[in-house]
């Protein structure tokens, strides 16, 4: 009895376990010395300098430009000034700015307070500069104390991972439903390109070549998403009315949508002349969470409710489990199929808008082979290609597993073709586990 419970637990949360293990492994291999850039680190650094240099010391603050760097420099300046030290100048800029500032020192400089990058500059340049400028003869450079921390577990990096999987994960919601009905949709990658191109073209048309307003942007996005939903509906129609296998129908749609994306865009990426369009793909408004991630989590919440608490959710499982039995018990099988393909097309259209937003361009080349990544996320997430089985949150975990592996390999510099081999191995193992699980359940 106890045995059975652990078995069930493992089959339900097995991929969560894999995800956690992956995170641990990647954390270990990306462990590296980090230079802190917080205001607290600036205060600590200032305290050390005050202790070492004593009062009346002349200090120059050199920090590389970038987000948050100004605050770091200001904290250093305020803390040091308060302690009575003489801050001669505060530079937040490029190495060229730093060089200029060093040349301008009129009194003997005792200390340079830096961040990690400017510390490298000082290490390199001070020996030569001190020969040229006598004021630098006795100058010491300080930087914040380093500590060990995995690059993988940095907040920006984790947000990157989530942001990078958002398009695939959102489309994978629709794909999960399609696969639960024992179907497949190969067209989603092409629909990304098609939706991006339609969106960019609509915005161009609506604004008449002038700067598009936010209203134009919203309408353009709606056009891209709607067109893809209609294509999805057409796919569903062909699958149900003519009884053509979904594989063949969506293969056809894949070629058509890809070709049309290139024809409509005349094979060139279409830029969108409003930076505001990047809001969805690159913005982050809610507590520092990227907007695309918020959207992804929201959609997963809704999809989970649909699949577990509504009749359409139960119908989807029923159609995949046994279509004949479902039909006999009054499930509108054909409408359910049209629904899932429409939804899948709609989400692919949304993915295309997100992709276009990320690059502020409608690019007919985008979305290439994304359908396979989406299917991989669904399969790794534990949904059976035979239909009738699968969980929405399993798919999110599957997308995370793939995203985390990709990120880990990029952080450690593994080359692209090896990455492809690893993806393949992970997918095969996921399917093997799935098969063994089913077999175990049957024998039980």
């Amino acid at each position: 009895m106890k045995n059975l419970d652990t078995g069930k637990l493992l089959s339900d949360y097995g991929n969560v376990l894999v995800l956690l293990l992956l995170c641990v492994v990647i954390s270990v291999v990306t462990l590296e010395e980090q230079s802190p850039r917080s205001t607290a680190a600036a205060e600590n650094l200032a305290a050390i300098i005050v202790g070492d240099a004593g009062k009346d010391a002349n200090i120059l603050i050199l920090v590389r430009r970038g987000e948050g760097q100004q605050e770091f420099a200001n904290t250093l300046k305020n803390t040091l000034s308060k302690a009575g030290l003489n801050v001669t100048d505060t530079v937040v800029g490029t190495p060229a700015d730093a060089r200029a500032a060093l040349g301008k020192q009129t009194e003997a400089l005792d200390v340079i307070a830096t961040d990690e990058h400017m510390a490298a500059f000082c290490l390199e340049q001070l020996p030569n500069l001190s020969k040229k400028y006598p004021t630098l003869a006795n100058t010491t450079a300080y930087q914040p104390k380093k500590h060990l921390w995995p690059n993988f577990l940095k907040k920006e990096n984790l947000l990157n991972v989530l942001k990078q999987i958002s398009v695939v994960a959102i489309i994978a919601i629709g794909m999960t439903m399609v696969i639960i009905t024992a179907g497949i949709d190969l067209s989603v990658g092409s629909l990304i390109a098609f939706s991006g191109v339609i969106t960019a073209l609509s915005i161009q048309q609506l604004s008449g070549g002038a700067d598009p307003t936010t209203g134009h942007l919203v309408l353009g996005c709606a056009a891209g998403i709607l067109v893809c939903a209609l294509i999805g509906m057409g796919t569903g129609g062909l699958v149900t009315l003519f009884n053509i296998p979904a594989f063949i129908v969506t293969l056809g749609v894949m070629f058509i949508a890809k070709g049309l994306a290139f024809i409509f865009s005349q094979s060139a990426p279409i830029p969108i002349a409003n930076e505001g369009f990047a809001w969805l793909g690159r913005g982050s408004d809610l507590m520092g969470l990227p907007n695309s991630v918020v959207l992804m989590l929201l959609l997963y919440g809704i999809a989970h409710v649909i699949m577990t608490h509504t009749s359409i959710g139960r119908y989807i499982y029923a159609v995949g489990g046994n279509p004949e039995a479902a039909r006999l018990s009054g499930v509108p099988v054909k409408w359910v199929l049209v629904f899932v393909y429409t939804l899948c097309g709609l989400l692919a259209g949304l993915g295309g808008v997100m992709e276009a937003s990320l690059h502020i361009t409608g690019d007919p080349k985008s979305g290439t082979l994304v359908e396979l990544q989406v299917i991989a996320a669904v399969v790794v997430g534990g949904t059976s290609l035979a239909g009738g089985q699968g969980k929405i949150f399993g798919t999110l975990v599957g997308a995370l597993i793939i995203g985390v592996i990709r990120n880990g390999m990029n952080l450690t510099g593994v080359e692209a073709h090896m990455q492809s081999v690893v993806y393949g191995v992970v997918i095969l193992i996921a399917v093997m586990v799935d098969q063994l699980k089913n077999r175990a359940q049957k024998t039980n």
Partner: protein
Amino acid sequence: MKKNLTLLPAILLTTWLGCGGNQEATAPANTGVNGENAEKTKGIIAYTPQTLSNPFFSVIGDHIRAEAEKNGYEILIVDPDYDVKKQSDQIDDFIAKNVTAIVLVPCDRLSVGPAVQAANKAGIPVFTVDAKCAADGVKIEGHVGTDNFQGGELAGKAMIDALGEKGGKVLILDLKRAHSCVLRVDGFKKVINAHNKEADGKVEIVSELDGNGDRTKGYQSTADALQAHEDLDAIFAINDPSALGAYTAVKEANREAKIKIIGFDGQLDGKQAIKDGKIYADPIQHPDKMGKQIVQLVIKYQAGESFEPETLIPATLYTKAEADQDPELK
């Protein structure tokens, strides 16, 4: 049993990520350390080309690595495989890693813009090699590329030389969507037009077709042109793969004795074809110099020195005489 299987991917990864750490270069110890809290390495230079499967970009990468390590930098090389989405993700990863500088060959000169802007915002200097970034509102600190126009001029001179006093009819295999290749054709035409004003034996460009920069399309377009122009004398292809595709078509039509082919790039199989007499000559690019010089720009930037933001490396002409001396070839 089941549990073991679930763990397998993680175990596999552990072993293999362990092997993948070869990019962690050890920097030589620095001398002249001024200050006890000073750094040991100078930082990381990150390189994302269009692909590493094209030898041109991997040679650039090899020389970036060599030059960077010689100067005490670590190097991180990734491969976006022509996918601008992947490349943008990689740039985001570089920013999270807080690298010292990013060296980029844009997969798409417009779409990569927002990612470059993100790097700009993070204060990380971005450099481009070979292809430029043409997006609005991005700051590129330096660029090293080939002087494609001058390379095209070299190809034009080689063409005049190959056709001799009588001149002849020429087919161009172009790749209009690549700006660099448009420049090659422009340089080629400039020399040809200047020649035609003075000389009696005119060089006539009878057709310009898309060669797509690859063997398949180069072959197809040439085969069509050979049908249309019975008296074709020569072909200028904007890179080696399309030149080699053209050769296949010419050979199939048994016209290889008459039709001279000029390519571009100087990739290994292109050079071999020149040695074998299949291609007449190539203006060649110098990816080794490009890799080396871009690192020099990074070093100058990091030192706060002033430098010329754009370096164009001249192409040189590679003919059978050079090929016969080339130790790389069979």
